[in-house]
């Protein structure tokens, strides 16, 4: 209900009017807080009388006057929905999102298609305006949805149990490593392949900096972790080995050989995987992973400049007591009716405090729901077809770029939906910037993270990319490279 401009009333009456929207330049009230506040001046007076004080200010008496802010916050003045809509649309127009330029960027966030059913369900405010389901009787909707999410993640990973979500893929790796350190309490060494997402490795380094752990990065000069290199590096002190499959360069790792090296040393094998890839590739549990983690953005979440996303974590049964985060379990109510509750909470911070194995509290519930709806919408056949389309189009793109754009494959390795190419130039950022105006986010410059890959960039191809877009990218890159060769800006 929108309040319309009316003849001015007496002051008391004015203040007693509740409004959802305040008109621009309204001289009755200078604040838009009323937009979300129901108390009118007469309500406030009645409430103050019941409390036994004469002003709201008296309620703040416990705050010493010397600590009060005796001025207004230095923030922009309130704006109406209409004004802010215009302001925000103008700001949004300054960005070049996927869609405005064709997105071939990957590196852990992918431009996959999101079926309408995902937004239809996640857009229901019965889900998005609820909170952590502490009161099971009033939260069966969320609890059952998370139980389904956990079950679907078990199917996706081939592992025994999954939690109800972590923040995102990077801290997911760190949480998995801390699980492994706790499970192998006498060991302190953590091995990670250089081919794991560089930001995930940075997160892990930050998490381990203050703990009794040694982090060793194993080089991957050929674009994958050589099982023999791992065999030479692993020791009896190794608590866990972390790899990514497919890795940051897009290449497949030799997961089964790596798993056997890790198993020989009784270390924990942690794999960061691409959920979509399980439509065609073996699942982490199938090739011997003990803990699987993933960035779940690809399962129905928009790119959104990096978050909120979804941290997926699943593991074998023996690690359940080390698992971080919320877990939903099935039980029965007093009448024997099947229902769901948060369970095994003795692991968590609100019970164990300083002895907790993780500090996570709020997680990414809404995005676990999105992933559950997405996976249910795709089903086995939809996931397989999505993965096959990604794979075929990525291979067509690699083939086309190599044939037409003067680029070559940087690594001679099999890949899934992402691959790394190199050019005869160390000016990769200039090359990529130059094709944005032709309508392409062409790829990620690898030199930013890998000094030895200044001449390389990665290209990601999802099921959304068309032949026309791929051919267009090849032409744009070719034109730009020729322009640069001729000394153009």
């Amino acid at each position: 209900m929108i309040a319309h401009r009316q003849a001015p009333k007496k002051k008391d009456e004015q203040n007693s009017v509740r409004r959802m929207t305040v008109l621009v330049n309204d001289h009755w009230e200078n604040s838009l807080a009323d937009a979300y506040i129901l108390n009118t001046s007469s309500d406030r007076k009645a409430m103050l009388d019941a409390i036994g004080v004469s002003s709201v200010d008296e309620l703040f008496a416990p705050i010493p006057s010397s600590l009060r802010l005796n001025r207004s916050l230095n923030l922009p003045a309130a704006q109406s929905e209409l004004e802010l809509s215009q302001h925000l649309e103008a700001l949004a127009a300054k960005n070049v999102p996927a869609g405005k330029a064709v997105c071939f960027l990957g590196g852990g966030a992918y431009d996959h298609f999101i079926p309408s059913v995902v937004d239809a369900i996640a857009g229901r405010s019965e889900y998005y305006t609820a909170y952590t389901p502490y009161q099971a009787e009033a939260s069966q909707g969320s609890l059952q949805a998370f139980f389904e999410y956990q079950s679907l993640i078990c199917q996706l990973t081939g592992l025994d149990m999954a939690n109800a979500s972590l923040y995102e893929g990077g801290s997911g790796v760190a949480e998995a490593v801390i699980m492994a350190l706790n499970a192998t309490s006498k060991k302190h060494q953590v091995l990670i392949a250089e081919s794991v997402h560089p930001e995930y490795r940075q997160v892990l380094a930050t998490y381990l900096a203050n703990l009794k752990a040694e982090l060793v990065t194993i080089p991957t000069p050929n674009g994958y972790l050589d099982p023999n290199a791992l065999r030479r590096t692993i020791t009896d002190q190794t608590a866990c080995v972390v790899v990514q499959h497919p890795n940051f360069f897009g290449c497949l790792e030799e997961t089964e050989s790596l798993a056997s090296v890790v198993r020989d040393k009784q270390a924990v094998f942690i794999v960061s995987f691409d959920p979509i890839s399980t439509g065609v590739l073996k699942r982490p549990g199938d090739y011997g992973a003990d803990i699987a983690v993933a960035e779940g953005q690809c399962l129905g979440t928009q790119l959104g400049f990096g978050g909120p996303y979804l941290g997926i974590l699943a593991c074998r049964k023996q690690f359940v007591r080390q698992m971080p985060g919320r877990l939903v379990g099935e039980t029965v109510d007093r009448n024997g009716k099947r229902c769901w509750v948060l369970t095994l909470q003795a692991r968590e911070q609100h019970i164990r405090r300083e002895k907790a194995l993780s500090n996570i509290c709020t997680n990414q519930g809404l995005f676990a729901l999105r992933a559950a709806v997405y996976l249910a919408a795709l089903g086995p056949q939809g996931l397989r077809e999505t993965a096959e389309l990604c794979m075929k189009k990525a291979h067509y793109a690699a083939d086309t770029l190599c044939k037409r754009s003067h680029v070559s494959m940087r690594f001679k390795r099999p890949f899934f939906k992402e691959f790394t190419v190199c050019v005869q130039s160390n000016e990769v950022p200039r090359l990529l910037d130059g094709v944005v105006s032709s309508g392409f986010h062409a790829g990620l410059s690898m030199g930013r993270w890998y000094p030895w890959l200044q001449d390389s960039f990665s290209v990601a191809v999802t099921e959304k990319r068309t032949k026309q877009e791929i051919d267009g990218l090849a032409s744009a890159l070719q034109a730009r490279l020729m322009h640069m060769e001729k000394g153009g800006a």
Partner: protein
Amino acid sequence: MDKPQSTELLNELSHAGRRCHMLPACDVPDVGPGMPHSALAAAPPPLPEIGEMDLIRHFTNLSGRNMSIDTNFYPLGSCTMKYNPKRHERWAGLPGFANVHPLQTDETIQGMLEILFDMQNYLMEISGLDAVSLQPAAGAQGELAALYVAAAYFRDRGELQRRRVLVPDSAHGTNPASASLAGFETVTIKSNSNGMVDLEDFKAKLDDRSAVFMITNPNTLGLFESQIRTITDLMHEKGGLVYLDGANMNAILGITRPGDFGADMQHYNVHKTFTGPHGAGGPGSGPITVRKHLAEFLPTPIVVKDGERFRLDHDRPKSIGRVRSFFGNVGILLRGYFYIRTLGPDGLKTVSENAVLNANYLLARTKKKFEVPHGERCMHEFVASARTLRREKKISAMDIGKRLLDHGFHAPTVYFPLVVPEALMIEPTETEGKETLDRFADALLSIIEEDSEFLHHAPHTLPISRPDEVKAAKEPKLSW
């Protein structure tokens, strides 16, 4: 309306051959991927096979088995369950925001960076601190990031003996858990009979091994720690840092600022104070603000402005690094920005005034018949106790919380903080009106007159009765 089929699981609904999502035919020639056979799966994961009608009906029916802010008063203490404006959802969904890839070049995200740059400034101004990182994904991760910053700061100064983090016994569990994860030892500080930090206990435990004092202010009892300046001065004299857990910022917006009462570091819960929808358990967003001398240790990247151009600054040699991949929980940060821009400085202050007014009104309405330790006044929330009720009438905090569900109210936070036995922590927030508060108070007061046996079996009208939590933990069934 609850239906028998509401509780069917997806795997039970699964029917071979059904599907919801169809994909286009492949439009590229097959160039022979040459995938190694050993890497390929024989079959895709055995996901359920569901048609679109069944899928929508399933999750729609499930949604009816939730309480939410849009359907119920949700006075969950410490969680600040305020109204989530609908305009935020529309704005966050603008393609120019929602479809931005996190690794695009700065030139292609100038609008996004402008918002985040402004948001950095707003959060510094509201906390009275000098520098900010928007990266942490939730309050707990903000705490952790700040403690990493503190550890890096002391390491940089060569003060390696500072291994202790002081935490009041009324603090959230995340505080001591974060301290352990950051390699610190937790020292618990007692609360005094007024529900505040026991200054004598604090002084006795304060020495040159103390690194950080983590304080929540207003504290979890809903009380402003009136000796906060003394506490922060003492901590600073010993060379330590003060961390403010900003969970309760909703009480003090524009009224007092953590930086002004001596905090050196602070996290925000954007999903609480600045109304990001709680999403049935997240996402949150936990940016941290710090004093100037800690700025160089903040996580990377940070948004900076060079002339008229915004860019992400990754080149910060003393930074602790990253606590997560990509920029942060941008979707929630955007909503926080929308909220601050909608309300402006006066509106934010009005938020806190009404949050405190609503809490005190509920307190006044209930305390005559309901025990509220330290309950003369409160800030944005208060903690009632069912201790006497339990002793005299065998009515527990749990019983009361469960019975409130029958009245259509979400239960308060129960059994927290730990310093109050049989605690019921009630936070109405500013977006509720007097009639709702009256109805809630009436319900609360009527419940304590009810028969205890009847209450032990509450709720009586919800889709399920009390679940067997012991069975859930003893025989964990965590998937189909």
